[in-house]
């Protein structure tokens, strides 16, 4: 029964950082808002640094077993913090000097805190807290940065999010009513004695809520609309960071409920397959690159759920999932950053000839998209083949087959995009925006993310060792 608040240092740093940016931003003149940007970056770096330090230590729990600080949490914290840092770079292009600049940064920090809590929660009530803290700032970000088109996106996100929150809480209520407890360790035992049909309702409801955060079937409708309708900062953030927390949370929930009942693994396998197929097929005919990426993230959630189906059966499950999360985050940010650097191009066909006029940006986009497909030696490839291996190792050979099939399906629409980029320019190529100005930042981030994808893939062995060092049972 120890509090050990210091174990939550990364969350505390992020949250306090958010508060100070919010308050400080109100007293800083518009043209000096860059100070808040630096404060945000410092808070995120601090959170990532302390989280990495925590990774070196042994797994611990805080607040009476309601929050686990283990490899999964630490990895999720590092990924979430560094990802948000990159998104800050994307945001600098869109938001510098905007009236809501510091507010947005504060909201990003709050949402990131929520994501971290979501990842570490080992108690259903803490899970609710994390869910709400990760969701509510998100509605505001979607609305704030989206302009007129963002209003619809914000409404959709809010309604679906509110519904999912209620469903999640309903599930928690049911599980609490059945077992009289909300902690995962005790749930594992108590659930075996409860009537399985009711347990099913409870777990499915919690799962549905978390899938909203992850943006997977069946709560995925908001993702493409939000990705298309809102500003690029919000689009990048909501398709990347919440997934980190939600996927780890789903992993923890599944570890708890599948210990005695393996059919839950099959449920996750089916959800993963459905997300992959739907996301990939829906992305096929999208013309807006951001909407295309929105659907592609739905498919990517499917890939991310694959290793969870091997929970407890394969040692590869957790490290491969965490690796995929990091790899996906990098590749996804890289692709979104390119759209941020070319804000006027809202059609895939408008990218024709980009390689001739902006070769660096074209290469960055190519690397990020190839990584999303899973071309070696880029980072997502390592994630993809290890997750497929984990699934097969865990007895789901068919899921590995589905992963390969969907990789092929996804090639088509990514190829449609980068094939256009590298084809010969059309006659009115002058419409391509030139470099410089506010788009310099997102362009830099795109290149950093692309180099990161390559580096993470090549040095996969090192990161794998870090992630696989201590596997919590």
């Amino acid at each position, binding site marked *: 029964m120890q509090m050990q608040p210091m174990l939550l240092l990364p969350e505390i740093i992020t949250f306090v950082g958010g508060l100070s940016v919010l308050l400080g931003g109100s007293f800083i003149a518009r043209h000096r808002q860059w100070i808040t940007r630096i404060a945000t970056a410092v808070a995120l770096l601090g959170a990532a640094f302390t989280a990495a330090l925590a990774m070196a230590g042994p797994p611990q729990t805080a607040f009476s077993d309601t929050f686990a600080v283990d490899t999964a949490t630490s990895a999720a914290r590092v990924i979430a913090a560094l990802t948000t840092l990159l998104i800050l770079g994307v945001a600098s292009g869109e938001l510098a000097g905007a009236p809501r600049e510091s507010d947005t940064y504060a909201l990003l920090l709050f949402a990131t805190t929520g994501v971290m809590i979501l990842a570490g929660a080992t108690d259903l009530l803490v899970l609710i807290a994390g869910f709400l803290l990760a969701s509510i700032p998100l509605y505001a970000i979607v609305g704030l940065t989206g302009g007129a088109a963002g209003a619809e996106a914000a409404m959709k996100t809010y309604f679906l999010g509110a519904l999912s929150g209620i469903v999640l809480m309903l599930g928690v209520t049911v599980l609490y009513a059945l077992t009289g407890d909300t902690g995962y360790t005790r749930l594992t035992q108590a659930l075996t004695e409860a009537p399985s049909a009711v347990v099913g309702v409870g777990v499915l409801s919690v799962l549905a809520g978390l899938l909203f955060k992850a943006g997977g079937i069946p709560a995925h409708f908001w993702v493409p609309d939000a990705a298309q309708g809102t500003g690029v900062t919000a689009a990048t953030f909501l398709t990347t960071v919440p997934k980190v927390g939600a996927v780890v949370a789903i992993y923890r929930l599944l570890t708890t409920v599948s210990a005695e009942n393996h059919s839950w693994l099959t449920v996750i396998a089916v959800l993963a397959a459905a997300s992959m197929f739907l996301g990939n097929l829906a992305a096929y005919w999208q013309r807006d690159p951001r909407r295309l990426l929105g659907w592609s993230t739905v498919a990517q959630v499917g890939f991310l759920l694959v290793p969870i189906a091997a929970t407890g059966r394969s040692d590869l499950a957790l490290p491969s999932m965490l690796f995929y999360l990091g790899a996906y985050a990098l590749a996804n940010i890289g692709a979104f950053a390119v759209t941020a650097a070319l804000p006027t191009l809202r059609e895939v066909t408008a990218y024709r000839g980009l390689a001739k006029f902006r070769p660096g940006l074209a290469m960055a986009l190519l690397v990020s998209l190839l990584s999303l497909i899973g071309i070696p030696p880029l980072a997502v490839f390592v994630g993809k*083949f290890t997750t497929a291996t984990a699934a*097969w*190792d865990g007895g789901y050979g068919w899921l*590995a087959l589905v992963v390969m099939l969907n990789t*092929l399906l996804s090639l088509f629409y990514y190829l449609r995009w980068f*094939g256009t980029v590298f084809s010969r320019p059309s006659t009115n190529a002058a419409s391509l925006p030139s470099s410089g100005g506010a788009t310099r930042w997102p362009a830099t981030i795109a290149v950093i993310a692309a180099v990161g994808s390559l580096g993470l893939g090549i040095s996969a*062995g090192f990161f*794998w060792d870090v992630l696989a060092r201590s596997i919590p049972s």
Partner: protein
Amino acid sequence: MLSLIVFLPLVIATVVALVPGIRPAAARWVWVVISAAEVVLVGILWVGYEDPGPNKLAFDEQVPWIPGVNSSYHVGVDGLSLPLLAMTTVIFLAAAIYALKNSDRPRTQTALFLFLEGVSLGVFVSADLIVFFVFFDLSIVGMYFVIAGWGHGNAARSALKFFLYTFLGSLALLLGFIGLYVFSDPHTFDILELVASTPLKNDPVAGGVVLTAIVVGLAVKTPTVPFHTWLPPAHTDAPATGSAVLAGVLLKMGTYGFVRIAMPILPEAWQNWAWPIIIVGMVSVLYGALVALAQSNLKRMIAYTSVNHMGYIILALGAVGLVIDDTAQARSVAVTGAIVQMVSHGLITAALFLLAGLMQSRAQTYDMDSYGGLAAPAPRFAALFAIASFASLGLPGLSGFIAEFQIFAGSIAVAPIAVLALPGILITAALFLRALQRVFAGPTQGLSIGFADLHGRELWSIAPLLALSLLIGIVPQTILGVIEPASAVLVNIVGR
């Protein structure tokens, strides 16, 4: 040494791609110089090569990559891969010399082809499934950009088809690799360890599934009937250098995968599935030859003869799976024939595609009926084309004969039904003679009028390929001495 050979072109490619200030002429010569250096390096390798013995590799290098899944950067060569390594460097040098006149984005082209050379060599030296897959997949990406960027006709569509098809193949391959990992004990991706432990030895069902995945993956790349449909459009619309590399080098990755991965790791499954594989090989031989016979587009015709020639290799390798007593010698001959065929086909077809490319660049068409009597204005062109055709149809004295003779001698000894594939040689002979007649014989007419003959650069690019084919044909011992010990080892492993 091997890492230097693989990474030298990759590093130079990166440098060339990143430095925009490189002048076109310099970029073209960088390609020539680096690929010549590669030829020299592989030559040094060849001189220092000694047969490493069963299930071992010479010039072995191993560095851990992802220890968590027992995958390491592990490279090495043996008698199966060394000839292919040498062939690859020669073909890239020929392509580099051929492209010396190219004015279309030479810097990007140099970077792309050096990248392709590095990954192709990487495939042939890999001793780890994941490293093999990395290079295998990257070769697809590189070739996609070659076809899409420098092709003609309906290049974008052909490139897309090429990418989708061969990517499907590579995914099937990856699935098979994962299967090998899952069923091996201890779990590993290392090829030598897998060969030693023969996973799935007592599990014919799972062994069959994993083998199917791997065979489909390799068959798409090879390609065999019925997975060949990507090949003709890709070849027809690719630039000449791209076609030469695609047919000469990339197709070999499929057939090489059989001898390096499928056969030694899954010997029992290979034996069980030997008959279907033999039949696929025979169908490819006959179908490829018959369809090639019906073409009027020269480049399409050469593309279909590739299907035919790859069919011989599949036939021979399938026959190796028929483990009948007292035939180890014959099966070893079949494997040797298959490897020689890979090298021979690489050299000859690269030469044929480069020659066909000249027709496109001079008269803008591959249509054979648009020419006639071309031998009069372009005697050197006609002579080289005739030599390449004869080599391709298996005339004694050239490398094609050595290869096909050994393939049939070895296959018929274990599977007499392979006789049925012999008409493939006859049809190939007919179609090449008919092509020679249509394009080169008779009065000079149509586009042949004013057709410039080969000049220095073109001659220096194409003639050495055919000279090597002649060398293998006359002094086969130069290459057989390297291959034969490795074939015997492979036959032993498959016969376990």
